[in-house]
């Protein structure tokens, strides 16, 4: 009887360990699957403009997060690497949202944001 408890306990431990490992692996994989984009925008003056641009950028396939820095006129995107958007497509979205794109930079590492809000 004791052996059965021992065996069950070991099995549960193995199961928990494998689940934890798999979560870590997935998290690592997720990090590796992301591309970071910084879009510099001219004319991003008011909250209606800023959140309008956010609304339009949200429609980009594969976008995970968007942060807008109104003061600096910057939009930061986190995008799935497998769905990395074309620069021209982002330029069109920015233009359609009523702004002029200054520069678009892609990076494998996250950008440092001045304000996390």
């Amino acid at each position: 009887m004791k052996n059965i408890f021992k065996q069950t306990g070991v099995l549960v431990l193995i199961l928990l360990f494998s689940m934890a490992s798999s979560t870590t692996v997935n998290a690592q994989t997720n990090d590796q699957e992301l591309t970071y984009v910084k879009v510099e925008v001219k004319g991003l003056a008011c909250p209606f403009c800023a959140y309008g641009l956010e609304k339009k950028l949200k429609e980009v396939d594969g976008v995970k997060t968007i942060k807008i820095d109104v003061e600096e006129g910057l939009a930061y995107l986190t995008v799935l690497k497998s769905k990395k958007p074309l620069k021209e497509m982002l330029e069109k979205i920015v233009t359609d949202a009523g702004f002029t794109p200054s520069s678009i930079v892609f990076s494998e590492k996250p950008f440092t944001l001045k304000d996390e809000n």
Partner: protein
Amino acid sequence: MKISIHIISFFLGLLVISGCSENKKKKQEATNWKFSKEIPLGNVSPIGIVAQINFLWLSDVSNNCIVKIDLDGRVIESFDGFQRPMHIAIQEDKIYVPEYTSDTVKIIDNESVSTLELKENTDAIAGIAVDGNTIAVADFYNHRIIFQQEDKVTIIGKVGYNDGELYYPTDVAIKNDLIYVADAYNNRVQVFDFTGKYIRIIGWNENIKVATGLKVTDTQVIIADFEGNRILIYDLNGNLLQIISGKFNQPTDIEIVSNKMYVVNYKGSSISVFYK
């Protein structure tokens, strides 16, 4: 002798005219808004404001919530989970919240939140006005106003810079069978009737830099000049009555209750209060 009488009459006339002008000036001063105080709002990034007797409601666009505060700025209640709430409206203690991102209008009624059905698709609802069963919403990216009376929908305005055309409208009000639109990036307010017919422009001569918000009372139209950091007050025909400056930091909306005017400052995260 006759000449003396004429001279005396002339000076008496001047005296009467100057007296009238002084009275008019005094009367004007009595109707002017005067600064009272500033209420800091801490972490709140306000866009819209509406009032109940002893409370103010604010839309907090950065934090995606609607905040109820007392008249000293203390937070009484907060409703979370909105998607970029903009210019709100109030009717019978119900708060109407346009969501910029989701293109829906939510209604806060006591503790519950429901969704208002719009009969036309929108792209970024920046403001809403409610008058009985009549609703007007500012459809920002489509450069138009959706005017909904029961099942009847009237589209007001189209993109452009001419009379009757709109360029990124951000706020709307309904008053005495007229629709007032904050025609934000045309730097003016435009007035339409319920059929969508253009009536007049207000604020064209004052070099407004982004007319983001407005309040219409029984006698006045008040405009928030976002980049100009001013509040401009007109009569209903568009005659300028007063300009207030030096007290704002990117004002977005105005509310009046109990003879006090409350102006929300987006960048300043505060409310500027005025009295008469």
